[in-house]
């Protein structure tokens, strides 16, 4: 008796000591105070409690947070008693990491910006709510249409991890090669359809006294985008999948090697503005805006980013990356697209149904149109920009979406395997400065991909 009591006491002491030790950085919490899902109805398909508070944390970056405030207002019109606690912040990761650890996260998070939490880590730690019930709920604007059918192609897939939809991105980002319409008109140039035409045009541009290309050398990932786009066009969706699934030899496949060769040719033929490898994104983009350079690779945020320094009448346009070969597997308009501004509902959210309902309002026509107008970016909601008069750049992006139709591709490895992205960035920086050739580039990146595949501490995903 005495013995058992003593060992029981010792056990309690040990537990107390270990929890004491584990306190702070990694202490978890219970979820007893969760708001239960209420009754569902046609009016309230997600079973939102009419009175529970809702905490929303939004990354307030380049796009601002007005659209999320609008969504909160829209939700309050339907549920006047719900207190929406809106926080627009920067450094989402620093603020929310301890709360995820303690299992007391907010109800909706826009996990974006430089200091965001690593999405792959949140997913593998099981910290996110499955969004299927939201996707299958009727949309706010048209109850006969499911929520999932109001989104652009690829958006749900973008946020799906191993078959489970966990993330919904709000802003659609396309990657392409940008040029000034007025500059091209002045010289009588047209945007090339194939990479061979691109190289020929580059020679012509050089003769006119301009540098054909520049890139944001300080951040080599900018040049990866046209490279992997070219590879995807030549190799099709199978190639994209094989890269993301870390298949052996994917980076050394003929399409990928040809794409590396295509980018290497820019450097070999002297088509790149000298010094580009040392320029920050601002410096490179400003040189382009000043008309010193004809082309720059970038995502569709470029117009917003350059707003303050773009001269009047510059008329920037995003062209889709040209075809790599005459026998590409994807048609010419195919474009790399992804979505950003990652909205999640944490698994341990106190008011998860409220969080999902918030997203239903966020992705409604009215809020999305407001986003297009205030943030100058393309929301992922179908038809949200119809009838709006778009600026030159955003207009070209919207047209590219239409022209691509179903031929929109996106790579996942950047989100899934950060160490592989790092190795790819390094290798591409070396390729563009001719310090390595395409074979060496492919060898290096493949080695990094193999290392990730072998590393048991990195959680693997399949698509």
């Amino acid at each position, binding site marked *: 008796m005495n013995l058992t009591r003593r060992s029981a006491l010792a056990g309690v002491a040990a537990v107390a000591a270990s929890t004491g030790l584990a306190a702070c950085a990694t202490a*978890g*919490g219970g979820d007893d105070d969760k708001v239960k899902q209420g009754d569902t109805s046609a009016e309230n398909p997600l079973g939102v409690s009419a009175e529970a508070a809702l905490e929303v944390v939004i990354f307030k970056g380049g796009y601002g947070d007005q659209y999320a405030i609008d969504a909160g207002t829209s939700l309050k019109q339907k549920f006047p008693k719900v207190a929406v606690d809106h926080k627009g912040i920067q450094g989402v990761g620093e603020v929310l990491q301890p709360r995820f*650890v303690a*299992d007391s996260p907010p109800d909706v998070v826009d996990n974006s910006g430089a200091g965001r939490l690593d999405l792959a880590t949140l997913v593998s730690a099981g910290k996110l709510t499955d969004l299927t019930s939201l996707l299958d709920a009727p949309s706010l604007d048209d109850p006969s249409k499911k929520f999932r059918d109001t989104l652009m192609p690829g958006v749900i897939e973008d946020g799906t991890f191993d078959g489970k939809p966990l993330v919904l991105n709000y802003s659609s980002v396309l990657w392409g090669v940008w040029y000034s319409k007025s500059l091209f008109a002045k010289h009588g140039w047209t945007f090339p359809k194939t990479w061979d035409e691109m190289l020929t045009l580059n020679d012509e541009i050089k003769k006119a006294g301009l540098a054909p290309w520049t890139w944001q050398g*300080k951040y*080599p990932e900018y040049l990866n985008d046209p490279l992997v786009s070219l590879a995807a066009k030549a190799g099709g969706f199978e190639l994209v999948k094989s890269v993301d699934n870390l298949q052996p030899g994917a980076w050394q496949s003929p399409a990928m090697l040809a794409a590396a060769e295509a980018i290497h040719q820019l450097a070999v033929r002297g088509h790149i503005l000298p010094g580009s490898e040392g*320029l920050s994104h601002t410096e490179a983009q400003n*040189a382009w805006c000043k008309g010193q350079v004809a082309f720059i690779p970038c995502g569709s945020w470029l117009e917003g980013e350059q707003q303050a320094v773009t001269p009047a009448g510059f008329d920037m346009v995003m062209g889709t990356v040209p075809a790599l070969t005459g026998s590409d597997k994807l048609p010419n308009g195919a474009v790399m697209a992804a979505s950003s501004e990652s909205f999640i509902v944490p698994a341990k959210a106190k008011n998860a149904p409220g969080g999902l309902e918030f997203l239903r309002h966020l992705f409604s026509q009215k809020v999305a149109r407001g986003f297009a107008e205030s943030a100058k970016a393309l929301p992922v909601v179908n038809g949200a920009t119809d009838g709006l008069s778009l600026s030159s750049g955003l207009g070209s992006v919207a047209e590219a979406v239409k022209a691509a139709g179903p031929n929109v591709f996106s790579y996942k490895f950047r989100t899934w395997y950060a160490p592989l992205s790092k190795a790819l960035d390094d290798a591409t920086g070396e390729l563009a400065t001719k310090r390595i050739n395409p074979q060496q580039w492919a060898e290096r990146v493949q080695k990094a991909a193999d290392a990730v595949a072998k590393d048991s501490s990195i959680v693997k995903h399949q698509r």
Partner: protein
Amino acid sequence: MRHGKYRFLAGALIVPLTLYGAFVLSPYLQAFQLAFTNWNGVDSAPEFTGFDNFSKLWDDPLFLAGLRNNGLMLLVVPLAVIVLALALAAGTRGTRVYRVVYFFPQLLSVAIIAVLWQFVYTPNSGLLNGALSALGLDSWRQSWLAEPNLALWCVMAVMIWSSVGFYVVLFSAAMESVPGDIMEAAAIDGAGPMTVFRRITIPLIWESVQVGWIYLGIAALDGFALVQIMTVGPGGPDNSTEVMGLGLYRTAFTFGKFGYASAMGVAIFFLTLSIAVLLLRVTKRERVELA
């Protein structure tokens, strides 16, 4: 009465000690604890993985690149700063204006220094390339921070530039406390200025120099802020400016491996500690007592 004194001391110390414990000691202890786990930064129950994280360090090419680069910085930066600072302190004795000028970089935050120097080094409109062209040295123009062979040296130049001023002031103050009559006596005995400097000034200010070695040794093992803001990548091109601190940051916040990053932190902690102790031992000299 005695009792009251202790009560007063305890009362005065409790707040600072609690703050120190909560914000300095406890994070350190937690980092040591996390170094033995596979914590990913958001999990509430990380697994204990023993010494796995530490054995992984030995074949992590990024960490080894950081170790190599920090090693080179440790060889170059302290020596260069101390030699320069001694020379400038000796050369500007009595002229305070220069000291203010040299000290100026000390007033700027590292972030501002890094941004300023990035503009100096930038290839097409940078001050450095501009100056070279103005001198007719067009062939010397470089993409300074984008050349793997030059980038780390460019970073070290900034480190040296930004810390020299502080040591000029430190050494100048020490030199002023060297009694003039000793110098005079040496000069009368026929010692030239170099001999006076080597045989008299240096030994008499050695304690300040020793402090300099240790501070600079510790600084050379860091370099995170400059590299993070200035360099290509950052840490590039192709990891030629990778430092251990940057690797730690990336491992934690980009790769989501907080346990492994803590192991890096623990390794850096012991490395820095050993080097500080080593420098203290190596630079130890008999103290000169001035009557």
